[in-house]
């Protein structure tokens, strides 16, 4: 694929999204030299319609559409039906479902695909049932036309009946129909310009009800976009893009009917380069929209608030406008073993509501990410610095002043060092320091901002050593230290200010004793000291404390035959907690032990392949928890908990032509313990389906 077409694909994907997710104010531009981004856009995340359009544009890339090799190929090439029925069960719900997918392929990569789905869900713990029916079709005209064109449509129907604890029964139902037409022409040249044009039209008819309030709408939308790019030097391209949409229709909310509309546009300009030692981009995007629709009355927080409001005033005609602009500079520089990556962005956004108490909300965000890398022989070195500055402000409806900016400022500095110490022995060192600050600014006329100013300062130091004897033995040792300072700045919040120091030491190894036996063991010692900043004040009822924990985890895997797999796990935990009780004249600190706890958990997992495609499985664990607390009254408690499940997994496929496929996983669970309720003590888990393709 040509580099420019990568950008165009991404651009079109953005346009496609833009028509549906119109609120995405910070539309991003993409790199015309970035084939990777284009590949991403063809990933499985595509909708059917995008896939059909991609297939028509580039059948090889879409994968599932055959290349037309004959010009005299038949009009009708194939039809495939795939009915599927299945059941799902777990601790929460039972679901029965059926799907039917029909795919018809015509000449010149033209394809029709229809997917029908229905399901019924019955909840085990709640008085709730959900029924759904969906039908979706897409029809891509392939290369029949000199441009790409497709039709799509869907019907979604659902009914959710829930009765809550107080016996209130609610029906939430929806019946929605959509139809759309998409067309685009990519990569056509006009002189030295490389262009892409896209247009789509869409119609929606929605009827829904929830808590006896109707929410219906019938709307039609049309949108279009144009992008052009040109080379201005070797490896340097400039691209501009324009997008616009309009929507109109009628809405019914509660008892009020009103016409609705939306208009929006996006304009973007970018310069993209990829030359020898550097690549990157500079881009600017501006977008805006205006939407008129019915909405429930909302308060200054944007929350629906209709309590005590007259029926006629519960629904308002809202007018929402948004203006956003973003700037982006990205540069990746590599010279030999040096690498420098730079990314600078600024995004700002104004969102205004005519009726909602929210009023005007303004936001701005600046980001700077810098990274430096260097490799020399067995050593490699990376330094990163990230900076974030963002604020939001709001002018409530009918207010004359803004409420004051709420600023978040964050800085992070990180160093990583890697070295091959000896043969198959690696050292990894890391140092990180970060400061995140919430800074509230007072509104004009106020002497004090809100009380939530706070700083969090964090330092991390860690060292990791790994040694590997290939196929036999692997050992590691980790040391980590962390210091966290949580400071609330205002007097009304600062009583809990504290500094935590944590130390961790974790040696471990994995030993393949023989092809059928392996042993994996890790030990972890962890200790954390908490120092409350104001524990010496009488008004602060906090005392310094420490917590220790030792953990030994052992795992043995046995494969006595190729069909049998046995896994044994043991987890041993020992915990202590203590609180500072006294300090003597020499400064020695004395602690009072609060808790001794020992938790033992043993687990056994068995897997046996009975015949090809049929696996019998079983698993069980048991936990013993001994807990001793010290205080005015010492208490000792001992709790047992456990679980066992047995099950089978079946995966079978019959017939080469018109294959019939069965997949079944069934497990029966039984559990006990202090927190196990009736529904979770005895239940089935299943995922069973049968599929036929003809």
């Amino acid at each position, binding site marked *: 694929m040509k580099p420019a077409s990568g950008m165009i694909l991404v651009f079109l994907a953005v346009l496609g999204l833009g028509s549906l997710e119109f609120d995405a104010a910070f539309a991003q531009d993409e790199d015309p030299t970035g084939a990777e981004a284009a590949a991403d856009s063809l990933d499985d995340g595509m909708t059917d319609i995008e896939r059909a359009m991609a297939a028509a544009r580039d059948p090889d890339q879409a994968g599932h559409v055959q290349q037309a090799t004959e010009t005299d190929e038949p009009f009708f090439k194939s039809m495939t039906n795939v009915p599927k029925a299945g059941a799902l069960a777990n601790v929460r719900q039972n679901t029965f479902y059926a799907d039917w997918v029909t795919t018809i392929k015509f000449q010149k990569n033209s394809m029709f695909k229809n997917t029908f789905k229905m399901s019924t869900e019955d909840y085990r713990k709640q008085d709730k049932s959900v029924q759904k029916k969906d039908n979706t079709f897409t029809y891509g005209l392939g290369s029949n036309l000199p441009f790409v064109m497709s039709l799509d449509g869907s019907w979604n129907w659902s009914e959710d009946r829930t009765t809550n604890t107080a016996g209130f029964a609610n029906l*939430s139902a929806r019946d929605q129909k959509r139809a759309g037409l998409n067309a685009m022409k990519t990569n056509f040249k006009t002189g030295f310009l490389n262009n892409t044009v896209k247009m789509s039209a869409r119609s929606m008819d929605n009827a829904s009800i929830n808590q006896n309030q109707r929410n219906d709408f019938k709307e039609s939308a049309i949108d279009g976009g144009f992008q052009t790019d040109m080379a201005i030097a070797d490896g340097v391209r400039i691209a501009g893009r324009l997008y616009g949409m309009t929507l109109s229709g009628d809405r019914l909310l509660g008892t009020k009917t009103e016409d609705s509309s939306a208009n929006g546009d996006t304009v973007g300009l970018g310069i993209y380069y990829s030359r020898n030692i550097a690549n990157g981009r500079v881009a600017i995007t501006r977008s805006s929209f205006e939407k008129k629709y019915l909405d429930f009355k909302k*308060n200054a927080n944007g929350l629906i608030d209709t309590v005590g409001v007259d029926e006629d005033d519960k629904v308002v005609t809202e007018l929402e406008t948004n203006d956003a602009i973003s700037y982006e500079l990205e540069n990746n520089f590599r010279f030999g073993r040096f690498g420098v990556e730079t990314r600078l962005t600024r995004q700002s956004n104004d969102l205004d509501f005519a009726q909602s108490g929210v009023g005007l909300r303004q936001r701005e965000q600046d980001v700077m990410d810098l990274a430096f890398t260097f490799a020399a022989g067995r050593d490699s070195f990376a330094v990163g610095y990230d900076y974030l500055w963002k604020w939001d402000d709001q002018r409530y409806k009918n207010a004359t002043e803004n409420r004051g900016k709420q600023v978040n400022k964050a800085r992070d500095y990180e160093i990583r060092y890697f070295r091959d110490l000896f043969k198959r022995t690696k050292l990894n060192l890391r*140092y990180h320091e970060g400061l995140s600050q919430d800074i509230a600014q007072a509104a004009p006329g106020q002497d004090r901002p809100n009380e939530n100013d706070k700083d969090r300062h964090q*330092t991390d130091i860690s060292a990791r050593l790994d040694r590997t004897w290939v196929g036999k033995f692997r050992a590691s040792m980790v040391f980590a230290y962390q210091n966290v300072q949580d400071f609330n700045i205002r*007097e009304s919040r600062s009583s809990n200010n504290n500094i935590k120091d944590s130390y961790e030491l974790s040696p471990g190894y994995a030993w393949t004793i023989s092809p059928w036996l392996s042993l994996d063991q890790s030990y972890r010692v962890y200790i954390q000291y908490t120092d409350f900043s104001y524990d010496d004040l009488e008004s602060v009822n906090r005392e310094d404390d420490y917590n220790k924990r030792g953990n030994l985890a052992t795992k043995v895997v046995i494969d006595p035959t190729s069909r049998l797999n046995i896994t044994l796990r043991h987890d041993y935990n020992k915990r202590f907690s203590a609180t500072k009780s006294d300090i003597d004249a020499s400064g020695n600190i004395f602690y009072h032990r609060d808790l001794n706890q020992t938790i033992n958990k043993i687990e056994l997992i068995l897997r046996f392949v009975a015949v090809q495609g049929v696996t019998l499985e079983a698993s069980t664990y048991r936990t013993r928890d001994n807990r001793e607390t010290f205080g005015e009254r010492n208490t000792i408690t001992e709790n047992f908990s456990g679980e066992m499940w047995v099950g089978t997994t079946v995966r079978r496929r019959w017939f080469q032509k018109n294959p019939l496929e069965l997949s079944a996983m069934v497990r029966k669970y039984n559990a006990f313990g202090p927190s196990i309720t009736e529904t*979770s003590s005895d239940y089935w888990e299943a995922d069973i389906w049968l599929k036929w393709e003809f």
Partner: protein
Amino acid sequence: MNSGLFGKMPHRRGLLLASWLVVGTVMLSGCLFEPREPEPPGTGIKIEYLPRSAPANVWTNLEKSLFATHAPGWEDNISQIEFRYIPDDEARDQFPPNTFVGWDRPREVTYINNFYNSNVTIIAKMTEDGYVFPPATGNEMTVEDIVYDLTVTNNIDGSSVRYRGKCDVIFRLEGNFWYIYEWRDLQGESDPDSGQLLNTMGVLRGTFGSQ
């Protein structure tokens, strides 16, 4: 042949050494970033959180955090490693698709800070009268059918909205402390006074988590 970090001193070794010197100077010079000097606690004002030695204490700490609109109290009680929130269907359907997809700790922290910074007064009751938490045991515990109730009053316009929901919560032991690992809202519950069906905190998360 490599002869160690400081053995031979070819050009690249010199550069590496120079890099270490720069970085080492920065590290040895002390903190790069300094937090601000906090104000000492005011008299009579304190939030007494319970030790996170049991899931019940963790849940109670959320109530204290809500009362005081004190975000660190919330952040300290949700998992420091991995957190997830799953909304009830009703709350999920009130927001654009994907609003709650991948709701993790950073999203939860954003939500609670935006919520508390929005000039609200909160009255919270995180369990119903008579609800008893099971005793803390093992490394992970699921506590089911917790019904919480909170009233959020906006200090700007004086409007008051009540939220009441039923949820399942998974608590996990991390280090020596219990944290909330998963919060799953099941359904909205009725206002005990008016009988009106109320929303869960999923609506608050959807509103403030995406700002």
